[in-house]
């Protein structure tokens, strides 16, 4: 390789390395802001690396698994409450609205709302997180992973407003 090419090669490689290091440090510093949601254990115990906890009255997103058997729906309207869990901690979520089709017990959910008590989130939006596993119904049933879309009666929908 002739010296001019060698020089250009060193310049380019060092520029890219420098930019890579800078971006790496910036992302590392911002990592808590890049996280889309808090998990229930992070709300109770703080983030793993920084120990930051949300304060009561703060608007946050919580992501966790819906605890089986915890979903309680009001038969007259759209009000619903359920518990989200991870790593043994639990957060109760209250929500008034239509749940996404993928909502079910054991499913990963992200709720966006205000932390009204230390373990209670009053949600204004509930999003369903689906995992990266895809399979046909028959296989899912043989694994015991059936899915039922949440249904609403006419009366429940009418009482919304």
């Amino acid at each position, binding site marked *: 390789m002739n010296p001019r*090419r060698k020089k*250009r*090669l060193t310049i*380019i490689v060092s*520029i*890219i390395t420098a*930019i*890579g290091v800078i*971006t790496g440090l910036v*992302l590392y510093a911002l*990592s808590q802001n*890049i*996280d*889309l*949601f808090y*998990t229930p254990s992070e709300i109770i115990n703080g983030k793993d690396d920084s120990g930051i906890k949300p304060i009561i009255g703060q608007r946050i997103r919580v*992501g966790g698994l819906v605890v089986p058997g915890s979903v309680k729906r009001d038969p007259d309207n759209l009000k619903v409450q359920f518990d989200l869990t991870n790593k043994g901690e639990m957060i109760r979520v209250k929500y008034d609205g239509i749940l*996404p*089709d*993928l909502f079910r017990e054991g499913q990963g959910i*992200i709720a966006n709302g205000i932390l009204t008590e230390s373990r209670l989130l009053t949600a204004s*939006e*509930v*999003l*369903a*997180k*689906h*995992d*990266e*596993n*895809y*399979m*046909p*119904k*028959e*296989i*899912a*049933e043989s694994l015991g*992973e*059936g*899915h039922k879309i949440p249904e609403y009666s006419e009366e429940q929908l009418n009482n919304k407003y």
Partner: protein
Amino acid sequence: MWKWLHPYANPEVSYHFAGKLIPWFKYLTILLLSIGLVWVLLFVPADYQQGNSFRIFYIHVPTAILSLSIYSTMAVIAFCGLVWQLKLADASVAAIAPVGAVFTAIALITGAAWGRPTWGVWWIWDARLTSELILLFLYLGVIALHSSFSDKSQGGKAASILTLVGVINIPIIKYSVEWWNTLHQGQTVTKLGAPSMASEMYWPFLVCFFGFVCFLGWIISLRFRTEVLSRNAMRPWVKSVAELSEKK
């Protein structure tokens, strides 16, 4: 060791080489994509959870994976172009960038259409979606830089530098779902180890994926040829190519 590559630095040789590739890519694209799309729309079983809306996977995932591979390819070419001062590298980057931009846009739009019925939102500023949007802006920046200099070689140089700087974004997109909490699900097919989908869903994915790869090869070869022609318009070999095509 690299001697066999040297003749392709000549625009005329690579122009004709790209011309020979086009029919292969074209017929493979038509074959694979028609088999793949009929297969996934009519015969692949619906997902146990998402039902039929999961079928958009077969367009969303190939285009999203390829939007990253196209960018990486472009970056390698830009790197070689800057170090070895190859004129053909500029032509290739100029040919590839718009295709990459379109693939990124398709990935973003199909992702939004998929997100609405499954997650409940069209768009959310999570790490995966945001970094993919930045990738779209990088492609648009490369396209803009190429055409904003009156001197083509200077524009090519500026665009190559931007391409190399932007390559930092590629690992960020790929690992965003592992490094941070996101709404976007983890990797199904690009991770190490077995893909986490049933085999009767995985095979049609492979057919669609290679269909899109051939589609890329086809479009990029076509664009590469026009770029080479427009950059060498004054050369005698281009004139003879033009005369030959007129006779036909």
